[in-house]
């Protein structure tokens, strides 16, 4: 079982349930994480449920398809099949910086603590870690670097030579 970090803390239980099968099969009161396709096909029906709905993006998905939905989604998850598939980093920044998404942005997949620093800079604030990875020990990796060069989600102005913004983003 994977573990979960959110807002720089270890989270015990994950309220979100992945939808298996069609949108009609969903138990009404659960918080559902659905694939982009399902969301686009059954948006209104999903929103009528009493549980919350989040969208799971795959690395090939175009985040612009959620541009009109950023206000009503409490969770967008981006799947990283492996750390080396870096598309999700761009997707995270696009959701935050271009589409103005402000809800929870979660990185999913077989990740280790080594991804956290980059992910947080790209706007992610919750993280699945693969089984066997110690989430409490992983937390210090958010502070692996005292300073950075570029602007990113955590830090708009790249040239004022200061440390990445602390806990407020991640």
């Amino acid at each position, binding site marked *: 079982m994977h573990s979960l970090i959110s807002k720089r803390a270890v989270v015990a239980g994950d309220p979100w349930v992945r939808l298996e099968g069609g949108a009609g099969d969903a138990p009404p009161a659960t918080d559902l994480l659905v694939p982009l396709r399902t969301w686009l096909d059954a948006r209104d029906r999903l929103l009528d449920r009493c549980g919350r709905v989040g969208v799971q993006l795959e690395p090939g998905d175009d985040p612009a398809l959620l541009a009109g939905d950023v206000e009503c989604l409490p969770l967008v998850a981006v799947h990283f099949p492996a750390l080396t598939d870096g598309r999700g980093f*761009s997707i995270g920044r696009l959701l935050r910086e271009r589409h103005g998404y402000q809800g929870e942005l979660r990185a999913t997949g077989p990740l280790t603590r*080594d991804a956290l620093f980059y992910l947080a800079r790209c706007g992610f604030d919750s993280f699945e870690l693969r089984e066997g990875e110690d989430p409490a020990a992983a937390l210090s*990796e958010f502070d692996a*670097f005292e300073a950075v060069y570029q602007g990113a989600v955590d830090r708009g102005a790249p*040239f004022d030579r200061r440390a990445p913004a602390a806990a407020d983003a991640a």
Partner: protein
Amino acid sequence: MYQYDTIDRSLVRNRVDQFRRQTERFLSGALTEDEFRPLRLQNGLYVQRHAPMLRVAIPYGMLNATQLRRLAHIARTYDRGYGHFSTRQNIQFNWPALARVPDILGELAEVDMHAIQTSGNCIRNTTVDHLAGVAPDEVLNPLVYAELIRQWSTLHPEFAFLPRKFKIALSGSPEDRAAVMVHDIGLKAVFDYDGRPGFTVVVGGGLGRTPIIGHVVREFLPATHLLTYLDAILRVYNLHGRRDNKYKARIKILVKELGVAEFRRQVEHEWSFLEGGPGTLPPSEIARVDARFTRPAYRSLPQVSTGLERHLRDDAAFARWVARNVHPHRMSGYAAVTISLKKTGVPPGDITAAQMDGVADLAERCSFGELRVTHEQNLVLADVERDALFRLWTGLTALDLAAANRGLITNVIACPGGDFCSLANAVSIPVAAAIQQRFDDLDYLHDVGEVDLNISGCMNSCGHHHVGHIGILGVDKNGQEWYQISIGGRQGPDASLGKVIGPSFARADVPDVIERLVEVYLRERDSDAERFIDTVQRVGVEPFKRNVYALVDQ
């Protein structure tokens, strides 16, 4: 040279600590081999044929004497007493122990060096003209922009895991000594009508299995927009570059598959959101980085040095070295000097720890304590008083580093090949040595004149054989080492790719084949001034082919 500030330093130190933790987790089993691989690669650590190989970054080829002495110390302490300069202006150590690599990185950090992003699928070291800042033909000193790119690309959170490695080249002069046409992104300095500095942006060039000359994506990009435009290109590539086949994953394939027009449209679309945004370079930032470069305190000197003239008359070997290895300088009375690492019998680019120490001393005595690494695997002292050339040459002779072959056929550019690299089809270093031996006669060598000869041990083309006037590529024929030979490649503003002359050759035949090619050139050239490459261009490949394969058919 750029001087680190506290932020540069903290970042490099933090990186060493992070990699130490990662190495420990790998050695304890907490990280799998597959998980550790991308992490170690981004810290310059390959696993190759005999042992791990550590590639240390030399940002845009600039190095100071203190750093070179530290590299010598590392070669002695952690390796077998030598290092190897690669065609990427970096240095490689072939024998470090994995568990000690964090210590090596710690030693490097003390002298403001690192191995960050020297391999892996990320933005690599920027290639810059090795005569940057001193070449008389330069229109813009590219070093400040190279440093800005270094900072922008270092630990870029969005582009750490690209489809494939990514290399940027930057040239400040029309001569283009940085090979901008054959990089993922090439930037050529230009000025617009108002005299504003900027760059022509070339994308999608590259060597490797599918050699392609890059395409101009933007004729003029004002320098202030450099980093946002790079962000736009990289984002299009990161999202859409192929990840299903590593041989099709470079940006050149994306540009080819989309077509240049569509690729340009996507980049410009992406850039429309970034243009003028926070990543735009304010003049104050360019000035800030510029101010962190030390500048040589040149003396005002006459152009002609009488002492030098006398030595040139009296000493033929010195005169030969000056003719080959000394280059003009924009300052009167100064010269730039190539230190050839291509002595016959020494693997191209190899240098011993003692030689590194010796060169560091000479750099301090004769060239403001700085030096550069060239993509031809040589070193350059960029700011030598012409009066000091003889003293420098004497010092280099004592170090066995005075080979007078810059630009000649024995200045072989070769990848490590099958002796070290596990991807190789064939060895390259012994082939280089055999060719150097064949051209050992100095009069003959100088009569043949300028020839770029490049050797790669496989299609990955680390020896840049496509752009050699003569290119040699190791191929595998039923488990045997064979060599395919091409001619007519060249670097520079009119870069072109060599043409294969025909079926490949056994290793033992290669020196004969090269000699045959040179024979045709000597017979066909219209004067001493016509170089090998010019003759190939004028008469075509046919006469060369005929002469070579007549040999094989006998």
